[in-house]
């Protein structure tokens, strides 16, 4: 194999990967926002619709805001999405996720808050790894999940506070309470940024 041949091979491979890599990153950039929208729409929207009981006319997924809620161990900022529900241009509710630890690990809870009255509008579980038929009983129970609605956000939602756990599903109930507690606190701290 001559040097010329090897050089040609290297050149061709570099060119091919370079051109395609550039093209791919272009496609990636062009589709990035759309992909993020679709992901949120398909993963979070069902819970979002359940948590929002007020009437609204916009697409809260489209009108979402990103807020910085803190930093992780490595010092990178933690960014959360806040979904804004509007009726005829007026903000009627905002929804954001808080995480608590249930029986099977972390669970996400979507909490909708009415900023005018500072009351919880509704909550719904987004992601969880609870035992089917045991822990899931709590998140399906109207009596348990309904307790949060109408409570002022300054109240304590943490376990041991004013919320009764669903019997037989204590860990899951406490996970949900923790999630709501954290979400409401994030809202209170970042109220100006969100609205």
């Amino acid at each position, binding site marked *: 194999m001559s040097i010329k*041949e090897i050089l040609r*091979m290297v050149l*061709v491979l570099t060119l*091919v*990967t370079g051109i395609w*890599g550039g*093209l791919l990153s272009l*496609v990636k950039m062009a589709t990035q926002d*759309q992909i993020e929208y679709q*992901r949120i729409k398909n993963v979070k929207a069902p819970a979002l619709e359940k948590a929002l009981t007020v009437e609204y006319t916009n697409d809260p997924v489209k009108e979402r805001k990103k807020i910085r809620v803190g930093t992780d161990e490595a010092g990178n900022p933690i960014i959360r999405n806040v979904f804004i529900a509007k009726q005829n241009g007026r903000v009627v509710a905002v929804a954001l996720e808080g995480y608590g630890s249930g029986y099977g690990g972390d669970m996400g809870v979507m909490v909708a808050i009415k900023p005018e009255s500072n009351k919880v509008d509704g909550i719904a579980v987004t992601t969880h790894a609870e035992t089917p038929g045991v822990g899931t009983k709590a998140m399906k129970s109207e009596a348990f999940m309904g307790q949060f609605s109408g409570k002022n956000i300054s109240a304590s939602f943490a376990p041991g506070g004013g919320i009764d756990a669903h019997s037989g599903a204590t860990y899951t109930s406490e996970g949900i309470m923790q999630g709501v507690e954290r979400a409401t606190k994030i809202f209170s701290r970042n109220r100006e940024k969100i609205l």
Partner: protein
Amino acid sequence: MSTIWQEFSKGLWKEVPPFRFVLGLCPTLAVTGKVSSALGLGCGVIFVLMVSNTLISIFKQYIPGKIRVPVFIVIIASAVTIVELMMEAYFYTLYEVLGIWIPLIVVNCLILGRAEAFARKNPVRLAVADGAGMGLGFTISLVVLATFREVIGSGTWFGLSVLPPSYIGFDLVQNPPGAFICLGLLLALINLISAKTESKRQEC
């Protein structure tokens, strides 16, 4: 013109994949539970096959023989990534249903097989025709198999009910073992048909 037509049409019956040309079996079985997912994957394969055939045919004299396979793979894998990104952005439900089978288009032997056997030896227009024909043949095959499995298995076609509501779906054909059995029976049927037509041709 006639040769372009020939290269295009061979993919539709004479060498139709994956029936005559048993390449790309894995997705054939995996995505044919529903007509919609079969069609979705088929379109992805058509796109990748046309892109790879076209590019390889255009640049065939610049690709050194010794590294042609890596170059082909890079081209194919990049085309697949484009399909992946596009599907996630604009057809999210389909993207979720197809899941792992979109990246797996890369290792679909059909695509590398056409690059190796056809595109690197033929002019661009023929390579395009070949890619379109093979891709279309593959898609039609998937849809045919999916039609059978979806109608018998759940009484629907493309999500619309086509059988009376009292029909109780025959779950076996929707399950993985049923996929193998259906494809096996379909291949046997094609064997039978071609044996019949060939013996007729000999009689003439």
